[in-house]
């Protein structure tokens, strides 16, 4: 072990210090399972430390600069004094959801800290769930996230402040999507660790929209671990919307376990952020499960995004699809690592994987690694990656019809991304997302400096967004 490895980064020292200083609070009315997770998380963190780019899975993302920063870990629990829509307004318009939020890492909502909605879905703070539903916590908490290999996940287990708990009972179909908004509104440099648990019982279904937003320009480091259990015949649509400032770092780890004939549809929509890493660890443990993990990323300036998929076919007759598309401008960089593992007895697996990129400048870069590891002999798997520029023939064709160069570019980029955004199942959300894509490509989607309502940029009409087939 080298000397530099022995010396703690400031962030490592702060995390350990925070745990020691706040042990009493962290363990207060704590479920034994959570207590163990915290203790073991710290132990593991001290052993594996923060992930560096010399490890294979992190070679495209270097967070050393952030590790050197003096982040303030966690924050005081905010007093609920403002309705969420007074501090934040969502960029996704006209989409009817039940909204829950986390402000600076703490559950921030009016009413009960955990509640049962009209349709039977239980939603609330994960801290409150420990007390009210100890048997659920006992059965699920840290059951899959504990397998994570890197220190940020381990530290998250040790020091997480709060998070969202969602439980959809057997045979319940949630009739309204749940929107979970995570906001940072703090003056200093802050690190936030949060922890979510989503459980879908047999034959249930849920649409879940997870938004990461900043409402100011301060530097932040967000680490989120989300565990997802999907029971037999259950179905989850999970949307992740990321619209963070350029000083933010987000490491989002999602752990999924799927039972027989269950489905997950994930759309990761990365619009903005300094450094974003999305990790998906998906385990298809029983026959007939289907996972679709797709996403788009639109980065510019010095922004960086890293999508890591680790998808395991552990049972026969499961299907999976990975499709990530990105447009990179200026000096932006991206990493895609799609890994599909097919176990020896996972026969009749069908797995597809694709990553396509448009680089608008010679300074933009993509590091793409499609990867299959197959031990079964009767499977259908494919992978592919493309990196290119806008098609010159198509550009000329559009311009020959009178469309100016800038609009022609927008049209082509939008069309390129539509392969992912066009598959969003909820119509109103699809329209909003496609609108956000156009605004982002046009440079109109902003994270305002001082403004609280970051969607206050007036809508400028753009003609091609009118879909006349709907009239």
């Amino acid at each position, binding site marked *: 072990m080298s000397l530099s490895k022995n010396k703690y980064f400031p962030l490592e020292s702060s995390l350990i210090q925070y745990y020691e200083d706040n042990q009493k609070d962290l363990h207060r009315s704590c479920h034994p399972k959570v207590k163990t997770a915290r203790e073991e998380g710290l132990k593991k963190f001290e052993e594996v430390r923060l992930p560096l780019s010399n490890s294979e899975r992190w070679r495209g993302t270097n967070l050393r600069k952030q590790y050197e920063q003096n982040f303030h870990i966690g924050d005081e629990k905010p007093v609920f004094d403002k309705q969420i829509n007074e501090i934040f307004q969502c960029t996704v318009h006209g989409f009817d959801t039940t909204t829950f939020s986390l402000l600076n890492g703490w559950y921030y909502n009016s009413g009960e800290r955990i509640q049962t909605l009209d349709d039977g879905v239980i939603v609330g703070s994960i801290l409150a769930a420990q007390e009210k539903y100890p048997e659920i916590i006992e059965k699920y908490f840290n059951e899959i996230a504990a397998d994570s290999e890197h220190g940020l996940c381990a530290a998250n287990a040790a020091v997480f402040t709060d998070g969202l708990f969602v439980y959809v009972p057997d045979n319940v179909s949630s009739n309204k999507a749940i929107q979970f908004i995570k906001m940072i509104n703090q003056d200093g440099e802050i690190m936030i660790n949060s922890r979510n648990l989503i459980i879908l019982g047999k034959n249930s279904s849920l649409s879940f929209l997870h938004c990461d937003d900043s409402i100011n320009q301060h530097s932040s480091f967000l680490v989120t671990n989300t565990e997802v259990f999907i029971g037999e015949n259950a179905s989850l649509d999970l949307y992740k919307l990321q619209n963070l400032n350029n000083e933010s770092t987000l490491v989002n780890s999602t752990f999924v376990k799927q039972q027989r004939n269950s489905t997950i549809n994930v759309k990761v929509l990365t619009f903005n952020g300094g450094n974003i890493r999305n990790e998906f660890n998906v385990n298809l443990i029983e026959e007939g499960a289907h996972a679709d993990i797709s996403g788009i990323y639109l980065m510019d300036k010095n922004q960086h995004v890293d999508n890591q998929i680790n998808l395991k076919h552990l049972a026969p007759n499961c299907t999976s699809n990975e499709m990530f598309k990105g447009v990179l401008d200026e000096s932006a960089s991206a990493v895609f690592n799609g890994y599909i593992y097919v176990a020896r007895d996972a026969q009749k697996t069908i797995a597809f994987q694709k990553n396509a990129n448009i680089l608008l400048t010679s300074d933009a870069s993509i590091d793409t690694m499609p990867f299959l590891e197959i031990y079964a002999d009767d499977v259908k798997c494919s992978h592919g990656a493309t990196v290119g520029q806008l*098609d*010159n*023939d*198509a550009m*000329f*064709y*559009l*311009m*020959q*019809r*009178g*469309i*100016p*160069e800038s*609009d*022609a570019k927008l*049209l*082509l980029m*939008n*069309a*390129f991304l*539509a*392969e992912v955004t*066009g598959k969003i199942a909820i119509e109103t959300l699809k329209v909003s997302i496609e609108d956000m894509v156009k605004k982002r490509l046009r440079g109109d989607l902003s994270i305002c400096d001082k403004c609280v309502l970051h969607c206050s940029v007036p809508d400028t009409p753009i*003609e*091609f967004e*009118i*879909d*006349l*087939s709907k*009239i």
Partner: protein
Amino acid sequence: MLLNIKNLNVSIKGKEILKGFNLEVNEGEVHAIMGPNGTGKSTFAAAITGREGYDITSGEIIYKGKDITELSPDIRANEGIFLSFQYPVEIPGVSITNFMRTALNAKREFEGQPPVPAGEFLRKMEEKKKLVDIQSKLTNRSVNEGFSGGEKKKNEIFQMAMLEPKLAILDETDSGLDIDALKVVANGVNALRSDDNAFVVITHYQRLLDYIVPDFVHVMYDGRIVKSGGKELAFELEEKGYDWIKEHVDNP
């Protein structure tokens, strides 16, 4: 005069393709340009529409009284120059409807008009679709994606009908068409002919000219027009073949 091309020289990557090309087109006229492969017919189409990579080394393209050689392709298009592509480009993810609405509004903006109202646009779409016998479903599909050869060419003429150009260049619109599709395309073109616009039809074969009857026929060889005449020239060419032209040029 609508178009006056004077002594045009065009090269691609330093190789001279058009060598002293001259052509005059007035409103209300249909011109046919014929000639063997590789004589520069498509280069003429690319040069006049402003395609990148086609360097005009000397000469002028005077359109509506102005030299347009420095204008970008979209400006030329909005000035009324339309090219029906020999190989229409597939654009996945862009529906014909949205494409046409964007193009039409770009033209209207260029002319200082407000965007076309939805109802008016839809009526126009329906009317022009009938003109070239396009199925309704087709316009909801992505531009040219998975279209048959005939559908692609019909779609070109449909777009021409929507945009109502002053000067339309049809680059081998007949290639890959069966006789029925050829008739549909030709009928579409004939319906759009007027005293205000002009057509330049590039073709290998006389066959198309049975349906789109030209006022003038020009024969190209080695980068320029070497022989011009009336529609009977096309018949003569069909009968005697391009060797007759080569001989005519090489041994005048």
